[in-house]
C-alpha cells in the first residue's frame, strides 16, 4: 500500500508544501496547497486531494443518476436531477432516430412525476446535461422507496468496490440503486427498507469516520439479533 497521509481540513487551510500534483478541491499557490472545501485531505505520491463532506451535485459524463420528470416538450423531457441544472432526455434517444412528434406522444413512455434511472451522456459548462436511458437497468423506476443523502457522501455509501452497498443489501434483503446525485432507491420487503434507510442515514452522518463498514456491519447484525 502506498503511504497516504490524511487530515481534516476547512477551506483555506494549508494542506502541504512541496512538489505535488493537485487532484481535486485544492488550489496551489507557489508550491503551497490549500483546501477549498470542508473535508478529508489525502496526501499521497499521486498528489493531493480533498474528499468533500458537503456540496452540491455537479454532473459528470457517465454518472448514473436518479431523476424525476418535471416537464416535457415536443422533442424532449426535462428532468430534475437534484443539481443546479435541469437535465434533458431527448425523445430521439428513447424512441430512436425515426422519432417524429406527430406519430408518437412522449407521454406514452414517461409522464410528469415519473422517476427514471439514467446516465449522463453529455455535459459541459456551456449546456445543461443530457441523459440517456438506453442501457441495462436504465429507464423508468416502477417501485421502491427513495432516500436522499448528500451527493458528496455517495462514494462512501458505495464503499471500496461496492463493499458497503453489498453489506447493506445482504443484511436487509433489499436491492439498492444509487444515483451519483445523492438519490438512493431501495427495493425490497418493508422491514428491509426501514433497516436499509437507517443504515444509509448512519453512513451519511458518520461518513468522515474510519472503519465505517465495520460499524455498519455490527449495527445490522445487532438489529438482526434483536429481531430473532
Amino acid at each position, binding site marked *: 500500500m502506498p503511504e497516504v497521509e*490524511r*487530515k*481534516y481540513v*476547512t*477551506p*483555506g*487551510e*494549508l494542506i502541504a508544501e512541496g512538489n505535488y500534483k493537485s487532484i481535486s*478541491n485544492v*488550489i496551489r*499557490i507557489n508550491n503551497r496547497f*490549500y483546501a*477549498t*472545501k*470542508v*473535508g*478529508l485531505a489525502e496526501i499521497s505520491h499521486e498528489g493531493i486531494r480533498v474528499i*468533500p*463532506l*458537503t*456540496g*452540491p451535485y*455537479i454532473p459528470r459524463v457517465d454518472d448514473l443518476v436518479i431523476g424525476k420528470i418535471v416537464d416535457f416538450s415536443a422533442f424532449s423531457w426535462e428532468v430534475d436531477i437534484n443539481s*443546479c*441544472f*435541469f437535465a434533458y432526455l431527448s425523445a430521439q434517444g428513447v424512441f430512436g432516430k425515426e422519432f417524429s412528434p406527430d406519430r408518437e406522444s412522449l407521454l406514452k413512455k414517461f409522464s410528469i412525476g415519473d422517476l427514471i434511472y439514467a446516465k449522463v451522456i453529455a455535459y459541459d*459548462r*456551456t449546456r445543461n446535461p443530457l441523459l440517456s436511458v438506453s442501457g441495462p437497468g436504465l429507464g423508468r423506476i416502477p417501485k421502491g422507496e427513495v432516500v436522499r443523502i448528500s451527493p*458528496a457522501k455517495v462514494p462512501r455509501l458505495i464503499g471500496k468496490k461496492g463493499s458497503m452497498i453489498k453489506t447493506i443489501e445482504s443484511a436487509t434483503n433489499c436491492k439498492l440503486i444509487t444515483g451519483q446525485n445523492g438519490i438512493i432507491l431501495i427495493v425490497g420487503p418493508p422491514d428491509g427498507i426501514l433497516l436499509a434507510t437507517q443504515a444509509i442515514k448512519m453512513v451519511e452522518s458518520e461518513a*468522515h469516520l*474510519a472503519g465505517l463498514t465495520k460499524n455498519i456491519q455490527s449495527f445490522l447484525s445487532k438489529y438482526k439479533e434483536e429481531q430473532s
Partner: protein
Amino acid sequence: MKELIDEKGLRIDGRRVDELRPLKIEVGVLKNADGSSYIEMGKNKIVVAVYGPKEVHPKHQALPDRSVLRCRYHMAPFSTDTRKPPQPSRREIEISKVIREALEPALMLEEYPRTAIDVYLEVLQADGGSRCAGITASAVALADAGISMRDMVVACAAGKASGQVVIDLNDVEDKEGEADMPIAIMPNLNQLTLFQLDGILTPEEFEKAFEMAINACRAIYNAQRKALMDKYFGKAEVGEE
C-alpha cells in the same frame, strides 16, 4: 461627549481596549438551507442562510462563465431599540453590496457557470459591527454549503473611542466614538477584501488600529474553523486524525 473609557482603562462594557466581545459560532442551524450558520458576537445575533448554486431567476442575470453571488443583509424589525421598518433601507442595501464584494474574492464562482448563489443575512439583534459579524458568519455558511472557496473570510472592526484605539466596537462606541474601521481579510492568503473607515485617524493611530484589527480577525478565524470542525468531525476529534 460621553466618556467611553474609564480611568482604569476599561470600556463601557468592561472590556480592555484590545479585547473582543464574547463570540459564538454555530454551523448548520437551518435544515432547509443548503448551508447555514448562526453567530453571536457580543449582543449581535445573526442567522445566515446560503442557497445554491441554483438556476438563476430572472434568467437575464445569469452569467455564462460564472455564478452570480447575491447577498441580502436585513435587520429584523425587533433587532434595534426602536422598531426598524421591515423594508430594506438605504443602509441595508449598501451593506448588502459591501458584504457581497467582501465575499466574492474568496469564492470560486467560475466553478458554477450559469447559476446563482444566494446569501441571506438576518440580523435578529444588532449591537454595532453587525456587518463584520455577518461576513464572518456568511463565510462559515458558504463553507457549510460546500461551495469551493479559496479561503475563508473574517471581518472585524477597529476604531477610536475617547482618544484611544479600540477593537471590535459596540453600538455606543460606534456612534459616540471618533472613528470606526471595519476590515475583512482572507487569513491564509493574507489579502484584504473589505476596508472602510468612518471618522478620522492619524497615520500612527491607523497603523495601530489596522494591526489590531488583523490580529482580531485571526482570532475570529480560529473560532470559525473550530465551529466547522465541530460540526463535521465531532467535538472529540478536532485536529489531525
